[in-house]
């Protein structure tokens, strides 16, 4: 089973318009300089789904980060591997 959803931040080069943003309905977009930053709660399948979309749409992926609000040592079920 998928681990519980966790907050992720994904940074993409360029400003995504309405068409491209519609590929990521689960993520909230904001512009940061010339970049677009997408954030949202994703479980493993959702995360890989987003990565596949980024690949399919030929987007320039700059950064991907799992956001951990408090740095408690190992989160339960927080690893994204089978």
């Amino acid at each position: 089973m998928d681990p519980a959803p966790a907050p992720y931040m994904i940074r993409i080069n360029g400003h995504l318009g309405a068409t491209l943003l519609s590929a990521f309905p689960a993520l909230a977009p904001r512009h940061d300089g010339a970049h677009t930053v997408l954030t949202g709660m994703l479980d493993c399948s959702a995360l890989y789904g987003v990565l596949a979309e980024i690949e399919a749409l030929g987007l320039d992926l700059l950064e991907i980060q799992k956001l951990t609000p408090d740095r408690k040592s190992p989160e339960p079920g927080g690893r994204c591997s089978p």
Partner: protein
Amino acid sequence: MTIISAPAGSGKTSLLRAWAGRPGQAHRLALVQVQRDQRDAQQFWLALLDAIRHATGVNGGAELPAVTPDFNGHAMADRVLSELADAPGGVTLVIDDLHELRSPEAPSQLTQLLTSLPPHVHAILTTRHDVRLRLHRLRLAGELAEIRAADLRFSERETRELLDASGIALSAAGAALLHQRTEGWAAGLRLAALSLAGHPDAERFVAEFSGSDRTVAEYLIAEMLERQPPDVLDLLLPTSLLDRVNGELADLLTGRPGSERILLTLEDANAFVESLDPGRTWFRYHHLFADLLRLEVRRTLPAEIPALHRRAAGWFIRHGQVAEAIRHTQAAGDWLDAARLLADHSFSLTLDGQAQTMQALLRAFPRGEDHPELALVRAMGDLAQGRLDEAAAHLAVAETYAKTPPPGRQRRLRVAVAALKLSLARRRGHLAGVMEQARFLASPVTGPSDEDIALGSDLRAVALMNLGTAEAWSLGLPEAERHLREGAVLAREIGRPYLEVGCLAQLGFASIFHGAAMPKIDAFATTQRRCREAIALAERYGWGTEPVIAPALMTLAGTMVWLGEFDEGERWLRRTERALQTDTGPDIRLLLHQTAGMLHAGRGRHPEALQEFGAAEHLASQLEGSQALANQVTGWLIATQARLGRPGEARAVLAALDDGRASSGEIRNAVAVICLADGDPGGALGAVQSVLDGTAPVLGYVTVVEADLLAGLAHRALGDQRAASQAAERALALAESDRLVLPFAMTGSAALLEALPRHQAAHAALLADLLDVLHGSSPAAKEQSSLPPAEELSPGELRVLRYLPTNLSRPEIASELSVSLNTVSTHLRSVYAKLQVRDRSSAVQRARELRLLGARRTP
């Protein structure tokens, strides 16, 4: 080998096409484009083989292997390699969009191909991301070139050249700006060139583009679409929902004619549309372009999308493209319809080699949209993967649902459930209970429409094959023969060669059993003929070493061993092993070990035989119900243990049997072997008594032959030569019509036979053959020689020939055959002439080399 690994829109395919089309290209090009989200490796491999045959002209006229549910990718990789090896001159093998190949088995099959390519073959792969192929050996050997995203980027000079070639006048500064903005990304430059061509102010376009922060593709596609006439937009947007499109389908989706012309124009304009076939009827959009268009449709026309998918689904179902139809039905959100379509076509999809595609479609149903009919499809996947408990659980769900289904669906569901239950029961070896419930399968399906009947035909043919197979394995003859024949005829009518081969293979297997305690005339010859026919048909479809034909291969091997043709039997057995590489069903593996054990036992290699019989016995213990062949396996296991001087082990196995099994003829024989090994011939005679008087149930008359021989050995040990000879004569009489050799070899009856007065023996020819085999010079022991073939002998000549190895004189042969001495002499002269020999002993030798001495060769 070359790998081109770079993201979408980097120009991989364009590079390939430009490279392949360059002048002076000496290599022949075999190009395969992997279809989007390809789950079943078989379609990929067949496309690859087809491309290679077209490119090389080798086997160009031959038909491709037909699709099979038992696809063996490694065997296919070997076949592709051998066809490549035969190709004259250099070949370039191109696999485009390798990342779309999602079959879990494909990477290792492909690795096998790519690491063994002959030197005159160059492979080029393109992929969006690195795929897991084990190519480090090639890399170390310096035989692997990699082209990656950075290599594909256009330089500023190349950007200028592209613009010049496209007839776009742009200042050097403008070109530099464009290059900087697109970062040399091929798709970006191509899109820009499309918009720039004929643009009134190219410099301004580049300046505005450069000033925008939007992503390159989105900005440029929006620009390009804005410049398209409405009819083109009306075509591109809805048809982007399809993986591939033709004029008719596009007309259907747009609701107006003329789509084909637009598609052709777009391809000619190099506008991200390309045709898929030489006749330019099917087209696809560049993946990146299609994905962006799809997003655009979802954003701008969300309400129309379900109806578009429904229309597409209707077209695909009318054209027999079930998987695509189901995909669009799912995309339309019509989950119940999609579930029914999938359940209704699950047998057909499996037969079409699309099992993985089917499971992928199954996984696409969201949690809340599960449907009881899908349990059937799940059970099918479980069975294919050998997850028998899960299959049983899913079948139970489907069966409960089939009791109260919506109107018009009950019959079909019942048949589907019963067909799968039979298959499951056979895998588990538990047939008794299921057979009664499944008998109704033999009555024909009547559907309300032609389509229903056609759908039902696949299902019905599968049901008949499963029913007949189950009957064959539980000795339910002659129903097995009738149902398998009926299944084969139906399969042929509906164009399902896989099922026809499957039915005929099982028919070959079924016909080896003759419950009768007396031999039928030519029973083994009939069995061999049926097996050879089934194998020939399988070979025609490229399935000569596939699991589907394994029962016939194994049965043929078994009959060879029974007839003492051990070398040829061994060859067929090896081929059976190859065919069963991908099938792990315990039932058929049991038979494989049993036949191997027979072969070793026949050659007097008892330790090896013990190992095989032990393995067979172990598999039998894993099967739930009692197996038809169980007593034979157990009996031979016990007998072999006794012969190897381990009577304690033999008695332990014996003690574990229930009364029913212990009183079977096969086990009684085994008891006799223990007694003989213990020096108790009287006990042995007592053990076989019930077999000889016909009160013990036997698998076939072979058990009686064995009992006679054991009795003969016992009499001999008791010093009663006359009774021993009588027993041996009875065994010979029974074995005569099939010319059985194995029981004599297994029981070690050489001395018993040698003691027979050979002049008076009524079975002189068989006796001579037997002694040959028992003394290790089997007719097949010599490899088939390279001597020129002899002129065909007539049936009369062959009959006389059979008596040449005996001590019988010419008059005695004449009296055996009830012909005149003159006839025998004439035949003999003719035989000598045709075999090009001068005397009787060299005629015998030559006839053995030519393998003319078996009765089965006699018409």
